[in-house]
């Protein structure tokens, strides 16, 4: 019967073409939207983890009350000892110290007086050690637009947009001006080794990257750091593992009553990342629900139209003695076949387009002017194993539900009136 039905579908285009197109479009849109959202959210999570949150972050208890603020006076102290403890107790993570700061960059004129000034957000991170992974986390080398990576202390990378605005080039000297950990004035001269473009508006407006030791010197923070970030060796965020690390680290310092004692928080404890991760997990479900609902209504309507068109056919089949349930089941089989064909075609096209966008990317930088979110300006889709089958779920379900609803009409046909109807 199945082959008979399939032949019917393929030969009777008026029965199959429109539903296949609708299912195909729906499946394609599902695939595209899913891979788009996965791509955007995935990139943002990776970017946030690498730049700001780590997978687990250790900060002072006071800082943990407002982890999004860059309060240098709430920094951790005795970090060499602290890192040793962390490495001993949580060995499957890379622990790195960083200093995040808000500061001012002052560019001198030929007399050494202020020519221009601008606010920056800055990172002091380990960029000079031979085995550091921080350069990769910040994607520094590929992000360099002019100049080169810092190779010695006293060199800095600044945002390309910021450098252009202030007409600064590699080799120029500037003064970093901010507050020390104790609140005093921090002044330190740096040479621009290169300019970088990270592809995130919030960073490209004005960022500076210096070595952690230079930051410690500038802000008078010997053996101190704003935060110690932990990254899983797999480089993938795992909620359960991160929670375990958080509990373990907090237990290590539970007896310490100092309000500046270390406290651990996970990626999802920070800056709305929790909701973001939940949202990322729920995307598939949300999309499937939306598409099944919307397409089921469209296909129900299409099924009703088909049912009207096939009114006579069903009447003849009933008159010939075919069971109503048999007709209804054959209608559902047809729907499954159409759903599979449409989903296959739609998913194929959807995956192709998604794969292309994943490779090429779409630059939305112009739309993100003034954005404070740490999001990449070039948006890429993410083709994951789910991308290949997600289109089939709404594709098949919607047409089956649509036809199941439309097919109920078969049971309302009265056999006694069939001949009257067929005479017309």
């Amino acid at each position: 019967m199945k082959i008979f039905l399939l032949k019917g579908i393929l030969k009777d285009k008026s029965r199959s073409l429109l539903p296949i197109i609708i299912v195909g479009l729906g499946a394609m849109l599902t695939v595209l939207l899913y891979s788009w959202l996965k791509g955007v959210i995935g990139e943002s999570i990776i970017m946030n983890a690498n730049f700001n949150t780590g997978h687990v972050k250790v900060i002072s208890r006071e800082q943990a009350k407002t982890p999004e603020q860059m309060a240098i006076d709430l920094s951790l102290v005795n970090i060499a000892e602290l890192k040793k403890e962390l490495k001993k107790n949580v060995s499957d993570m890379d622990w790195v110290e960083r200093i995040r700061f808000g500061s001012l960059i002052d560019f001198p004129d030929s007399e050494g007086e202020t020519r221009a000034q601008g606010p920056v957000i800055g990172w002091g991170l380990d960029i000079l050690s031979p085995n550091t992974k921080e350069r990769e986390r910040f994607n520094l080398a590929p992000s360099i637009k002019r100049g080169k990576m810092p190779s010695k202390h006293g060199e800095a990378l600044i945002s390309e947009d910021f450098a252009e605005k202030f007409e600064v080039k590699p080799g120029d000297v500037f003064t970093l001006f901010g507050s020390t950990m104790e609140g005093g004035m921090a002044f330190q001269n740096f040479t621009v080794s290169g300019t970088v473009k990270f592809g995130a508006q919030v960073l490209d407006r004005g960022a500076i990257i210096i070595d952690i030791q230079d930051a410690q010197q500038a802000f008078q923070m010997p053996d101190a750091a704003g935060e110690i970030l932990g990254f899983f060796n797999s480089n993938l965020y795992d909620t359960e593992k991160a929670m375990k690390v958080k509990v373990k680290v907090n237990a290590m310092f539970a007896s310490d009553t100092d309000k500046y004692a270390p406290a651990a928080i996970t990626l999802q404890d920070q800056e709305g990342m929790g909701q973001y991760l939940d949202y990322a997990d729920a995307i598939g479900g949300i999309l499937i629900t939306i598409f099944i609902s919307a397409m089921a209504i469209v296909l129900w309507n299409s099924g009703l139209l088909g049912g009207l068109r096939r009114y006579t056919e069903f009447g003849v089949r009933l008159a010939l003695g075919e069971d109503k349930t048999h007709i209804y089941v054959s209608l559902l089989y047809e729907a499954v076949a159409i759903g599979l064909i449409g989903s296959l075609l739609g998913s194929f096209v959807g995956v192709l387009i998604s794969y292309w966008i994943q490779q090429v990317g779409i630059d939305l930088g112009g739309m993100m002017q003034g954005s404070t979110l740490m999001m990449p300006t070039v948006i890429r889709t993410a083709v994951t194993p789910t991308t290949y089958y997600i289109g089939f779920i709404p594709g098949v379900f919607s047409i089956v539900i649509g036809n199941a609803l439309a097919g109920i009409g078969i049971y309302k046909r009265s056999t006694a009136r069939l001949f009257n109807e067929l005479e017309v």
Partner: protein
Amino acid sequence: MKYIKFLLIFLLAINSETYAKYPDAAGIIKKIDENMFSTNRVFESVMTINGKRSSRSIVSRTYSVGDEKSFTEYLSPASEKGTKMLKLDNQLWIYSPGTDRIIQISGHLLRQSVMGSDLSYEDMMEERKLTDIYDAKVIGEEEISNRKCWVMELTAKVEDVAYFSQKLWVDQESYVPIREDLFGKSGKLLKRATLENIKKIQGRWFPMKFTYKDMLKEGNGTVFEMTDVKFDQKIPAYIFSKASLKK
């Protein structure tokens, strides 16, 4: 009608009695200005900043001429030694010996804290006479630290002021404010200053110890204590030049 007339006369009587109770506000702030402001002054001070995690003291020497010129050199601790600040009218420059740079401070940066204290650059620069920038009225009489004070309300009459309004408790004997509550335009209390150790120096009453508390930040405030103050001195003109920053 008879009753209304009676009521009006009664209210006028009460009102005039209220005003008669307190001295003229303009006269009080004029006397405050005469005490607190001079043609010029040279002073050494110790600023103790009681931060969230620790306290530290910074010693400095300041030369100032009216509200136009001011020059401060930080003498200790070692990390701040040699840092100098020059204010000329509305401009401020800082010299840091470590970088050998003169950096101009302007715009919103003037509202930033000086050396992590409860004082902003704007606070340090604000040297204008109260009579020039505020309208005043006396709103009551209170006793603070066993001193009888006039309670005054000052409201800005010019645009470019750091604090839109102030509430002062002015010592009735010395005409020195012994407490100042400084408010923003929204009416929010931004800072509180307590002035103590009032001494008579060169014929004027002057507080030698100021305690500032930024009400928007944690910490226990900043104590600014003058160890030596001289008024109406001969200050060489070169002190107030950018060249002197690097000397």
